[in-house]
Structure formats: C-alpha cells, structure tokens
C-alpha cells in the first residue's frame, strides 16, 4: 500500500514537470502551428539562467526561477522575430515541415553556441534549492521536489488563468481558433505570435530552472525533456493545452510503473511503446479531434 502511495506521489511530481514542458509546446503548436523541436533548448537556457541567478547573483530560489523565465521569455521573443517572422513572409506551403527543419536547426545552433560560451562543464546546485525533507504519508520526499513541483503547478494554473481571464489571453485563444477572425476584430497577429512564443519558451525555462536541483545545466540537458513533451503531445493530441496537463501526469505514471515493475532501463521502452501504439491506433491522440486544429480550448 505504501508503495502504491509513494508511486502515485512520485508519478504526479514527475508528470507535473512533463506537463509544464508539454503545455508550452502545445501552446505554440495550437496558436502558431509550429512543431517546435527547439523547445528543449529553452529548458536548457532556463537551467543555465537559474544557475546564474542562484549561484552568481545569489538570488533566492523563487527569484532565480522567475529570473530564468523572464530572461528566456525575452530570448524567445527575439528568436520568433528573427526566425519565424521572415518564415511567415516567405513560406506558405509546407509550413509545418519548414518549422520542424528550422527549429531543429535552432536547437543544434543553440546547443553548440552554449558549448562555445560556457563549455561542457556541468553547472548544478551542490545542495539543491531547499534543504531538508517533508514527510508525506510517512514518506520522506525532498523539499526541492515538492516546492519545485508546486512552482510548476503554479505556472500552469497561472497560464490557464491568463488564457481564460485576461484580454491578451483571450486574444491568444482567438488567434488559435481563427486567425482571420482575430485580425478582423483588431488583434495584431504579429504581436500575439511573438508573445506566445516567448511565453512558451518561458514555461520551458521555468521547468528547466525548477529541475536544476537534480539535473545540472549542460548543453544537452534539454533533449530528454523535449522528447518527453513530444510523447505527451502525441499521446493526448496536438495543440490541446488542457489535455497536455493530464497527458504529462499520464506519462509520469507510465514511467513510474515501468521503473517499479520492470526496472529503470524500461522507462523509455514503456513510453515509446505506447506512443507507437497510439500512432497506429489513434493518431489524433487520446483527446484529439480529427481534422480540428483545436488548440487552446
């Protein structure tokens, strides 16, 4: 029984970070129809910025994570303006394929740029953000795990509130549902695209910053989270932000199950096996609708 409770808690915590990554990926797919394969690199930058904030500037953990999100938001907006604005002008056909190739390029460039600037050394927190443990149902779980999980949940809840309750958030949803209609009511598509991309990057950065307590920043630290967030999207359907949250938790469960029952070597086999099954049986994903770019509902 204890084992089950422990597994559930670990799954939810693990899945929560996947959700945070997947939500940003989903948002950009839903609003801009971009298959972002550089999403992991913004996670990686988030980890570096959080290290910088925490160790170099000696900020408290919350501020370090916030700093990482804000800095990567700015970088994300810059990347959007430098790369996708020109692509929108020039590419009409094969847009999705072009975004895939382009973001793959961005990913490689960013990894190597970081390697050139800071080298291959690992930048990690020697003692995490928060010391100590918390007792939950008699099990000791590190404060880092719990508080960082709560921060990522707060980021997701904040995003949902922002999308549903604010004027700008509504405008983002409007663009995802009907870009022409959005223009006609006076929404500036260019601004929404830049802002949305920045927001998505900031979410990835917050995930990277949160997980810095256990995964040190390296040039390729974003790869695993990138794959995980794509698992989630394929599992629940592309571009559905709400479903991505659930999807993250599901993937967390699957992995914990695999680790507990089969051994940690089977973790990715489990996820990938299910992804393959999904693609064969229900390519639109668990919550996906056929032919609908259903986006941010």
């Amino acid at each position, binding site marked *: 029984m204890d084992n089950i409770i422990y597994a559930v808690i670990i799954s939810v915590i693990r899945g929560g970070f996947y959700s945070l990554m997947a939500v940003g990926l989903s948002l950009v797919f839903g609003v801009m129809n971009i298959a972002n394969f550089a999403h992991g690199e913004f996670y990686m930058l988030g980890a570096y910025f959080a290290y910088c904030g925490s160790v170099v500037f000696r900020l408290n953990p919350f501020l370090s994570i916030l700093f990482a999100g804000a800095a990567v938001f700015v970088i994300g907006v810059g990347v959007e303006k430098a790369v996708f604005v020109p692509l929108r002008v020039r590419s009409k056909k094969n847009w999705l394929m072009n975004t895939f190739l382009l973001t793959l390029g961005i990913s490689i460039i960013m990894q190597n740029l970081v390697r050139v600037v800071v080298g291959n050394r690992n930048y990690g927190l020697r003692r995490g953000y928060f010391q100590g443990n918390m007792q939950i149902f008699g099990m000791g779980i590190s404060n880092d795990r719990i508080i960082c999980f709560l921060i990522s949940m707060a980021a997701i809840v904040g995003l949902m509130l922002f999308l549903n309750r604010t004027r700008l958030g*509504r*405008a983002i949803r*409007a663009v995802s*549902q009907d870009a022409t209609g959005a223009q*006609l009511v006076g929404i500036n598509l260019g601004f929404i695209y830049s802002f949305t991309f920045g927001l998505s990057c900031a979410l990835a950065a917050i995930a990277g910053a949160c997980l810095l307590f256990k995964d040190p920043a390296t040039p390729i630290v974003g790869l695993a989270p990138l794959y995980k967030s794509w698992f989630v999207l394929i599992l629940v359907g592309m571009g559905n932000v709400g479903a991505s949250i659930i999807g993250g938790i599901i993937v967390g469960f699957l992995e914990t199950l695999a680790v507990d029952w089969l051994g940690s070597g089977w973790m990715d086999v489990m996820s990938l096996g299910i992804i393959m099954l999904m693609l064969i049986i229900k390519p639109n994903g668990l919550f996906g609708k056929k032919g609908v770019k259903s986006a941010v509902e």
Partner: protein
Amino acid sequence: MSETHNILDVENINVSYGHLQVVWDVSFSVGKSKVVALLGLNGAGKTTILKTIAGLIRPQSGSVGFLGQDITKLPTHMLAERGLSFISEERNLFISMTVEENLTLGAYSVKRKDKIHENLRAVYDLFPRLKERSKQLAGTMSGGERQMLAIARGLMSNPRMIMLDEPSMGLSPQNVRVVFETIKMLREQGVTTLIVEQNVNTTLEFADRAYVIDQGRVVMEGTSSEVRADNRIRKLYLGEE
C-alpha cells in the same frame, strides 16, 4: 481621396491570385449612411474586392480610401479601430468560445470597459436569441445563429461601416428578413453598409445603390431601381425573361 462625403472610395484596384487576375480596374464609392450592394454571379470577384478593402489581400495597383484616409497598405487589425467591420462569408467565429466571449472579443479595439458593456447590451437587444445563448459555444450553434453572432460581433467595435459578405447564405427566409431589417436599422443610426449578396431581389429592396460585377469588372452601376429596371440584369440575376 478628397471627397470627404464618401465613407469608402475604391479606385482602380487590380487584384490577382498568383498569375490569375480576378479583379480588373474596379472603382466605386460608398456614401455616408448608405447601403450599397455588390451584385454578380459566383466567382465574379465580389468577395475578393471585400477582402482587398479589409487588407486580407493586397491589390497589385489602385487604392482604397476610408473616411478620407488611404488604407490600402493598412494591416487588417488596424481597421476595427478605424471603424470598419468586415463580416466574412466564412463568419470566422471563435468556435470553441462562448457567444459572450466572441462578442467581447468583437470589442477588442474598444478600450473602455463601460462602452463594451453598453455595446453588449445593444447587440443583445438586437438579437435576443444571442442573449439566451450567451454561454453556449459558438461552434455548437445553428447556421442562422452563427450568422447573427458574426454580425453582432462585427457591431461590437462601433463601426462606421460594415461590410457583409453573403449574410443571407444558409439562412431561413425569416432570418434573412432579420438580417436585412438590422441593416436598415443600422442605416438609421448612421452606419454605412457594403453588402455582397446572391439574394438579389431582397438586396435591391433594401440597398440605395448597386454595382454589378462581372468577371472582375464593374459592368453596371446605379440606384437600386435603375439596376432593377435594367434588362440584362433582370435576365442574368433575377431569372426573368
């Protein structure tokens, strides 16, 4: 662009899709508080003309003036603020949002909150059906309700002029009546209308002026009664011998 008594001046626009030119040297103007119709068969280029005015398509040459200012190169999202509202044939509603969210977004260019509420009340008075359905998702409504919502959303930005593309398409005769009565009422409030319609009879009944477009060119223009009296028009569009 000097005739300030006109709301809209379209001068010699040429529009192409790739190498295919669909609008040839079209000019027309719309006076204040008038209802002007563009008539013509399917594929005559009427929708293209409206989309060009709305900035969704750029013309090869020619200019579009709105309230005495050149808007030919103005981005589409600036038009709502200037007072031009385009209710497209596709409706372009936000289907996963409620009726009320759609309407609120219609007033995106309106900065003052009290003004938005006032407009919301006004369109609910105009279309009580929408008020009943205010919490329903736009995508789950019937064709007629969607058209009402599209028009209502277009009115939320306090437009000086609305452009309607095929508003009666897919509507019951009763709803068609509602649409045209709305246009008539808007005219009384000083709102100008440019309308593209297949429903020629009803349109001419309500319009002040009409331009007949054929293969991308203006082939005839005049008051509604002049157009109705024209033999060619009767044959082509009214199905009379």
